């Protein structure tokens, strides 16, 4: 039995998991239209390679990855590209994002595809294939998997995250119960790439069936299934690493700094689909729960509108008032039912006033430090709140604002109902905005200073040229004066000298360029 460690704090919110984890998952039928945002991952927006009107096959590349930190997007089914336009997406800003609109033709015809022997491929080639298949982390952050694995070689521990600690969500639970063998095949690819000394799967003890299924599938493979106590947010990457290894990811660092790589079990499953079947990331398992008739998990195509899935789950009950994309702790509240499911969407919760009552009015902070007791990042949330509220961003940063994982545990326990995480999000994005402004200002300063320098340089060049000309004129004048001394009858001396100087100048101008002394031709 492995010795488990604990992370600081944590909370026990009501789970609400059984209703959606009990029925087996179902495949969602083809929706009438699919909306595919070009930015479904962390990094650079993918670049479209199709045009409106194009007929595409299932699995065909629609948008390719740009540069290293990016991921490709593929057609989830066969059909016609209707348009490429800005559409509403599930983002807190509510800003539209460039999307490919696809009208399925109902045939669901695959492009030619097949699995491959990953062990026969060089490492780089395999990583490139992961990128071109659009594989990103399905745990929620949608970090491109090939980037994560690029530097992970010969690491100490590979951790598969099956904790799924957030209430209501049950996709990983169902996935592990139903496709344990597939997950293990995907893990083998990850192990091949990362060459870890040990491979662990962390699963919370509220998922006994998933634990049993994974244990059976991992039997004899050298992968260890570790049962961890249920405590939110044990599924946070840094928290899970702490529980399983006792190591802490340094502030501002990545798990790789301590020889650990962490990946979601659903990502492993997606890698299996690619390697053994040649299928890019075009669908995912998603929980539809909350105020619906029959909560369930669905294998939904990426780009399916929320509305379609809610209908599959029996439709929203009459007293519903919106949706949460993601979990209740870290998810995003939306009202538009036409928003698409993207690679990072793991759950849709239909809201109602009864299930999610509006938070009572926020009261002043009484500095009870309950938030300190539950903070899994061991921060001082009440101080961070204080600084963020006062817009004292430098101070907030020095209190390690950027170590906050926005898990919402502090807001959950706050007796004054202060929306603490909103303050942290505000402070973080304000700091980023200030950094962008500073970069722009530095660039402008540099360019302005260069311009001033250039103008000054041009002025000097001009002055030098003028001085040289004058010098030449003076010399000519002196020469002329010397000449006139020998011829006393040639009119008044001064006039003659001036005329000679002029002549000298005219000669100079009339002389071909090649004869001019080099310093003057500059």
């Amino acid at each position, binding site marked *: 039995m492995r010795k488990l460690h604990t992370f600081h704090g944590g909370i026990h919110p009501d789970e609400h998991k059984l209703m959606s984890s009990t029925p087996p998952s179902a495949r969602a039928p083809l929706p009438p239209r699919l909306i595919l945002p070009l*930015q479904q991952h962390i990094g650079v927006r993918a670049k479209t390679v199709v045009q409106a009107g194009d007929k595409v096959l299932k699995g065909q590349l629609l948008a390719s990855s740009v540069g290293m930190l990016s991921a490709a997007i593929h057609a989830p089914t066969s059909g016609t590209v209707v348009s490429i336009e800005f559409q509403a997406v599930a*983002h*807190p*800003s509510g*800003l539209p*994002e460039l999307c490919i609109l696809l009208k399925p033709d109902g045939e669901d015809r695959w492009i030619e595809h097949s699995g491959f022997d990953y062990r026969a491929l060089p490492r780089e080639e395999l990583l490139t294939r992961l990128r071109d298949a659009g594989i990103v982390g399905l745990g929620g952050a949608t970090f491109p998997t090939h980037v994560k694995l690029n530097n992970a070689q010969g690491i100490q521990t590979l951790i598969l995250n099956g904790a799924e600690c957030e209430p209501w969500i049950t996709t990983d639970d169902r996935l592990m119960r139903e496709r344990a063998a597939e997950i293990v095949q995907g893990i083998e690819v990850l192990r091949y790439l990362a060459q870890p000394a040990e491979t662990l799967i962390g699963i919370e003890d509220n998922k006994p069936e998933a634990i049993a299924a994974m244990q059976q599938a991992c039997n004899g493979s050298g992968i260890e299934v570790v049962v961890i106590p249920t405590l939110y947010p044990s599924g946070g990457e840094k928290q899970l690493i702490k529980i399983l290894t006792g190591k802490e990811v340094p502030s501002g660092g990545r798990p790789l700094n301590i020889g650990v790589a962490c990946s979601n079990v659903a990502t492993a499953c997606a890698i299996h689909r690619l390697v053994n079947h040649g299928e890019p990331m075009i669908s995912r398992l998603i929980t539809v729960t909350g105020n619906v008739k029959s909560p369930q998990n669905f294998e939904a195509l990426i780009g399916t509108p929320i509305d379609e899935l809610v209908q599959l789950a029996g439709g929203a009950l009459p007293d519903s008032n919106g949706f949460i994309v993601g979990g209740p702790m870290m998810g995003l509240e939306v009202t538009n039912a036409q928003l698409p499911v993207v690679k990072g969407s793991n759950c849709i919760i239909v809201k109602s006033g009864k299930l999610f009552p509006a938070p009572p*009015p*926020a009261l002043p902070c009484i500095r009870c430090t309950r938030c300190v007791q539950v903070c899994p990042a061991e921060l001082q949330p009440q101080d961070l709140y204080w600084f963020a509220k006062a*817009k004292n961003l430098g101070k907030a940063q020095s209190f390690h604002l950027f170590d906050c994982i926005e898990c919402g545990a502090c807001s959950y326990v706050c007796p004054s109902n*202060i*929306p603490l995480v*909103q*303050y942290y*999000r*505000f402070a*973080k*994005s*304000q700091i*980023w*905005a200030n950094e*962008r*402004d500073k970069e*722009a*200002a*530095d*660039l*402008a*300063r540099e*360019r*302005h200073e*260069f*311009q001033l320098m250039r103008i000054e340089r041009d002025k000097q060049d001009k002055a030098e040229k003028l001085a040289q000309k004058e010098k030449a004129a003076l010399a000519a004048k002196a020469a002329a004066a010397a000449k006139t001394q020998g011829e006393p009858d040639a009119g008044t001396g001064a006039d003659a000298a001036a005329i000679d100087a002029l002549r000298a100048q005219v000669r100079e101008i009339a002389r071909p360029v090649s004869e001019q002394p080099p310093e003057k031709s500059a």
Partner: protein
Amino acid sequence: MLTALLIMSALALLLGAVLGFSAIKFKVEGNPLVDKIDAILPQTQCGQCSFPGCKPYAMAIAAGEAEINRCPPGGEEGIRKLADLLGKEFIPFGEDTAAPKPKSVAVIDENTCIGCTLCIQACPVDAISGAAKQMHTIIESECTGCELCVPPCPVDCITMVPLPQTLQTWKWQYPEAALEKTAP
């Protein structure tokens, strides 16, 4: 007694020499305060402060010749930062100062442009590309939105377009609204 005097004067001479040497060796070029002020200013080089650029304004502030509330692109946030740096009180924008505007970039209507190069000469950050009798265009990423190119244009083909918000530039709002609404 004499020894003591000698030692003290020798020490004084030595220390004086060290101080004199370091004053020359470690001489601070320019006024460091100017650079600190200049770092806060937004570098639009727009001249709305009545000085010909951000650096001259910073020098005037450092010399105590100008108030800190003359920079509209810096916004109130800028005044606050200057006040913090200089240990002064925050003062609102003066009546003669233009109101802050949303960040914009200049856009040249390329059909109307006659290629006179006047805007190129006006641009403080060389963000306009073009040549005589050739169409000009603005390098958007370099444009500071200073509007200095707008008045010289003889055919009025330059307009200031506010930068649209994108997912990359969007930021979370201050949650104050929520708090105010619910405050007793």
